[in-house]
């Protein structure tokens, strides 16, 4: 029997994986991949809870998360392209002028 907790734990693990990606990645593009993973992890949780509670709110939330993810991709990639055009790199280590 797969309970809600199974899905939630899966969601949690995926979230952690996403987090690993976020803190590990220096390449911004691949870092964005990791944020997608985190959002998707939440989606799984929402869908699962929604299913087990027979409540559609979770699916709504997941739906909006997908929308937000898409928007973020648009803006994020816009920024990346801008950076790449200007500086020829999208490596985090190359953007460290402002510190202290």
């Amino acid at each position: 029997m797969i309970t809600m907790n199974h899905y939630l734990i899966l969601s949690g693990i995926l979230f952690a994986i996403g987090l690993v990606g976020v803190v590990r990645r220096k390449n911004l593009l691949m870092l964005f991949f990791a944020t997608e993973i985190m959002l998707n992890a939440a989606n799984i949780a929402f869908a699962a809870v929604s299913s087990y509670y027979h409540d559609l709110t979770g699916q709504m939330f997941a739906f909006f998360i997908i929308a937000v993810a898409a928007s973020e991709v648009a803006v994020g990639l816009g920024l990346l392209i801008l950076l790449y055009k200007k500086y020829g790199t999208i490596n985090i280590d190359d953007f460290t002028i402002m510190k202290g």
Partner: protein
Amino acid sequence: MEKYVYIALFAPLVGSLFAALFSQRPKALITGVVTSTLLFVSFVASVILLNHVSQVGAVHVTMMDWIQAGDMSIPFGFNIDQVTAVMMTVVTLVSTVVHVYSNGYMDHDKGFNRFFSYLSAFVFSMMVLVMSDNFLGLFIGWEGVGVCSWLLIGFWYHKADVTRDVNPSISPSWAANEAFIMNRVADLGMLVGIFLIYWNIGSLQYADVFAAVPSMDHGMLVTIGIFLFIGAMGKSAQFPLHTWLADAMEGPTPVSALIHAATMVTAGVYLVIRANPLYSAIPEVSYFIAVLGTFVAIFAASMALVNRDLKRIIAYSTLSQLGYMFAAAGLGAYWVALFHLAAHAFFKALLFLGAGNVMHAMDDELDIFKMGGLKKAMRWTYLYMGLASLALAGIWPLAGFFSKDTILEVAFNEHTYGIWLILWFTAGLTAFYSFRQVFLTFTGDERYKPLGFHPHEVPKYVLWAMSPLALLAVIFGWYKDEFVAFITHFLPTYEMSEHTEHFVVILTVVTTAIALSGIVFAWFRYSKGLKRSAKVEQSLPYRILSNQYYIPILYENVFSKPYAALSHAFWEEIDQQVVDATVDGIATAIKDGGDSSRKIQTGNLSDYLKLMSGGALVLVALVLFAAMQN
């Protein structure tokens, strides 16, 4: 009578302010004349008051309120009773003489006007001291004379500091500060005494306080007595607060005569006499006073034995005589103390003024080893000083005989034979050093000649000015009985016991004998000229005495230097290194905290993300605590 009180009190002040107006002008004779005249006016008023007091009784006036706070109410009130009247008369008389004398003595000094301003201000303060009807008023005068003394000791402030070897007083300004500070130490004791009186009696008026004495706790009375006496010790330069007096000789000689012989230094004695109801109630303290007085008498006399400084010798003798007065007061013979005070004022002032004449003649040279044979040039001065010295030595029929002899009788009468013995011996010493000085100065070979001095007698009017003192030094003692009759209206009488009456002739003879032998010894030793003996001068006792028992050096090493060192340590080691450094340290720590925490801000996004995740982990991990609690 009120107006005479005010005239006596304020005439010197007016004179002082008048002279102050000219303080920055070149010498104007008018200042000397006006102040002297006003002093004379004050003297006349004092005499009138004295007469009034003796005829009618005490005069009491309250001029105005001074301090009123809480329950404390202190007026400017003046009470002229017998003791005050005597003091006023003595003070104004000596002051007038000294003023007149100073007109001549300070003739060539640049600070002539300033000098008179200070001197009159001193008289005013002294009058406040003796006239006040309460302890705080006395304290005004007490501090006032201190300041004037400071001003006058340091009158020649422009002199530079020198080492102790060159001048034991270092410099006038140093001596002035020493005097002031040492007096302040005693003043603190006096203040504490005043506070004790206030909080135990609720008033500082003499009348209230002394009325309350019989009903008070004995221990408290003892405490009050001790603290008041500490005040007296400072002003009267009693051991261990005595060193300033000798150093105070840096002031112009009239100052020494007036302040450091006749008037101010006797203020302590005056206080004890004034507080006689209190001290009568606490015989143990009184006895201590007597013992201390006795000790100071011989202690000071011993230092005078070997000193070469004309003025310092007189200063030590003053100290010694103050010891006599305290001994008398401490033994309960208040009127005797007052009598000696007055007599001493006359002959000691005379002695000092004579010394001033000598200094004048010797271009301010004070070393008696460099004098000798001055009697040719200064006949009158020799006469005056001889007279004064005789009085000091207590030779009949001069004033000193009557007063000092009575003190010895009192000591005998009280069965304090130790005190008597010491005082008796001191009388001999007194006679010796007085005449050692006189003989070394005025007789024998003229040692000043090779040194190029051309001594000359002072102007006539100066000598005339001194004559009242000379006269009084001679005749004052003759009026002892009248004095007793007058003063014991106020002060307790002191009756000799039958036992003493029995011995009185023998005592007189014995005392006179030792005084005479002192004089004779001095005559043999010094009248033919100075015979220095290196062996004696190298001997330990001689060195101890000539170095004032090493007490100034001791004070310097025990108080002054450690105080300075401690001050510097407080400032440099504690204030800067600890207190301020702590404050700055906190500030620096915060700033360093900023410096090290700004390292968080590496500028690298990845680090930010790590930090953020780490923070999130910490927050979320708090659930583990919640889980454990469940």
